[in-house]
């Protein structure tokens, strides 16, 4: 991966990391490194997850009881801490997803409005 690649990537918006982690965990239990990989590959390498910020976030979400953790073994036979979505986390995910959708839609409408105006003008 080149420096150029990294610069094209998007840094995560404030507060979106939790939502992404919860979404990834819908597919099943995953460890920290796996979550980071999944976010990056599912966004076609567009989103960059700061590994240093990932673990405190997981820690915080565990304290909120959105996720729970257990030590297990990874596919390549390494010991890793696996995170699972809890019922409370699932509820939070639903709530946050709809909030994000409304937010994105509202943003889109306003940005499109500007484009229309510039076309008219």
């Amino acid at each position, binding site marked *: 991966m080149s420096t150029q690649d990294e610069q094209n990537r998007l840094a995560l918006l404030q507060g979106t990391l939790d939502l992404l982690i919860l979404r990834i965990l819908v597919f099943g239990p995953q460890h*920290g490194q796996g979550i980071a*990989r999944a976010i990056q590959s599912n966004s076609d390498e567009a989103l960059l997850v*700061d*590994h*240093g910020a990932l*673990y405190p976030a997981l820690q915080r979400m565990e304290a909120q009881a959105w996720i729970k953790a257990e030590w297990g073994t990874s596919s390549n036979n*390494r010991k*890793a801490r696996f995170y699972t979505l809890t019922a409370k986390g699932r509820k939070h995910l639903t709530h946050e997803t709809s909030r994000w959708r409304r937010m994105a839609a509202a943003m889109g409408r306003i940005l499109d409005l500007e484009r229309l105006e510039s076309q008219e003008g």
Partner: protein
Amino acid sequence: MFKKRRVQSDFSQELQAHLDLEADRLRAEGLGAPDAYRAARRNLGNLAGAGERFYESSRWLWLEHLTLDTRHALRRLRKAPVFAAAAIFTLALGMGATTAIFTLVHAVLFRSLAVSNPSQLLRLGRETHCCVWGGYSQDQEFSIASYELYKHFRDNTKGFAELAAFEAGEVHLGVRRVHSADPAVTIVGEFVSGNYFAMFGVKAYAGRALTSNDDRSGATPAAVMSYRLWRQKYGLDPSVIGDAFALNGQTAVVAGIAPPSFFGDSLRETPPDFFLPLAMEPMIQGDNSILRVPGAHWLDLIGRIQPGASPASIQAQMRVELRQWLRSHWGEMDANGRAVLSQQTLYLSPGGAGITSMREQYEHWLQILMMVSGFVLLIVCANVANLMLVRGMERRQQTSLSMALGAGAARLMRQALTESLVLSILGGAAGLAIAFAGTRIILHFAFSTAPGFATVPISASPSMPVLLFAFAISLITGVAFGMAPAWMATRIDPIEALRGAHRSTRRAGSLPRKTLVVLQAALSLVLLSASGLLTATLHNLEHQNFGFLQDRRTVVGIDPALAGYKQAQLESLYRRIHDALASIPGVSSAAICSYSPQNGDSWNDGIFVDGRPAPGPMTISKPRGIALHRATSKPLATASSEDGPLPNRTRRLRSMWPSSVKALRGSFSRTKTPSVSISGTATSGPPANSKLSAWPRTPAI
């Protein structure tokens, strides 16, 4: 909430696992093993930083710091046992004294009666009028009532759910169990209305409480005994309940036992041990009964208000009732009573603390004691702060090293403060023991003269408020003496760590130490002069001129009523006692009076010169025996000639009749008693019922 907290090693393991997994991935993408690991490491960022962030995200971090600091402080104190012992002992003395005084302040000034919902209670009067008040006018306010006036209030005031009356003074009873050979003992009793226990919401501990049925003329005489008397004299014997007792020779049945916490309607030095219905008063007092005398006011009133009733409207209504009642006695009133009738009024005040005569009596000296012990505590703080500063000096080396290694000033200050708090809490705990002993000693010296089994209902053992107070005072003290040393601890240049062990400058910190010494000396001086003044005052009070000689004189109390003597027998009995006393070898003279000088009691009635208009309200002096003046060697002012000089006239008489010296030979009238003639006047001394009379019994502290 108290789920086991994730430990930091678990978190480090997770980060390590991440590095391994990431390195595996990068190697799979084709990187060499060392490069892959380095890249993984770079992506993760600052490993130590992440670990630190994890550690600090813990909500219980402060608790962990506190535990560490406390353990550190304890270890340091153990290494300096002499310092620790000295500091803890000093602190214990200061805080023990303060806590002891607070125990008394709490018991006397703040505590409510042990009754249900004390906030619903209202009492008649703002100040206490004790114990019998004659006539139809009272100074300032009507705060004490006759039985007839009580019934007038009780039957007409609808705002009270229950209005009870009880004796303002106390009655001494000669008590003997009828079917036992024990001799009679003197017990303090109190006459109460039948609804007294119902009004307070107090249920009997055993047997039954008094009811309105007991408070009827012709009812079987019944009484309620205090739990204390039941335990101390009768060993909780259940056969006492329902048994017959002779009270001043009259038989009554003990209906029940009052609860242990109930000490009556007021905090007093001699709480009653027998509660008797008002209807029994004529039977016990015989010819001296005042139950049916409308103008003899001897009852305090406390009522429980109806839910939703307003105290102000009850007070207004009772004022109207008072006027009505006074007007209905217009015929018996003297001219003075008629003149001041329109000024007669009454006030209601919160009754949850009962009748607060003891509070009024001791409030000021408790405040003084609280202030003095506060001063002592301040001196202790200055003292211990100085010791702590010296200790701080000794560990400059260590502190500067900690700072050079990156310890924060706030953290160092917290550590020093924790040490102070540990010391002060240890001192406070030791102080509790001193407070307990101190309170017992004060109670013993201040209230040791109660008759019979009565003891002041104040417990020396620390209650919850006292424990909280001791804890709070420990924290405050710890911060007070720890603040300066803690601040000084952070005023150290880390560069000192680089210098040699003995090269640190000794000058730093000497100013605060000097300041503390000056403060300590100044406070000690204030305290010394204050206690010197107190001692001098006490000495003056003990040796002041009471108007009579005190040496070689003894007061003997005799109460023939306890043995069942009747009024008619008294004169010959007193003469016999008088003659018997006077004939004892070594007794030079003896006298008999109803109240001995300076015993703090009085009897109020109006007097005026025959044939002259009645003056304003006055206090008559005590009826004294024929030989009292001789016995106390009080010089009598001789009114030998009508125009002759009268050198020693009392201030009171002079203020009553400033211009009528001749009147002193005339005869005087007292309400409803035959005229008496004045044979002379006494020299002036302090008022006989002055509050000063409480002082000689109070210990010098």
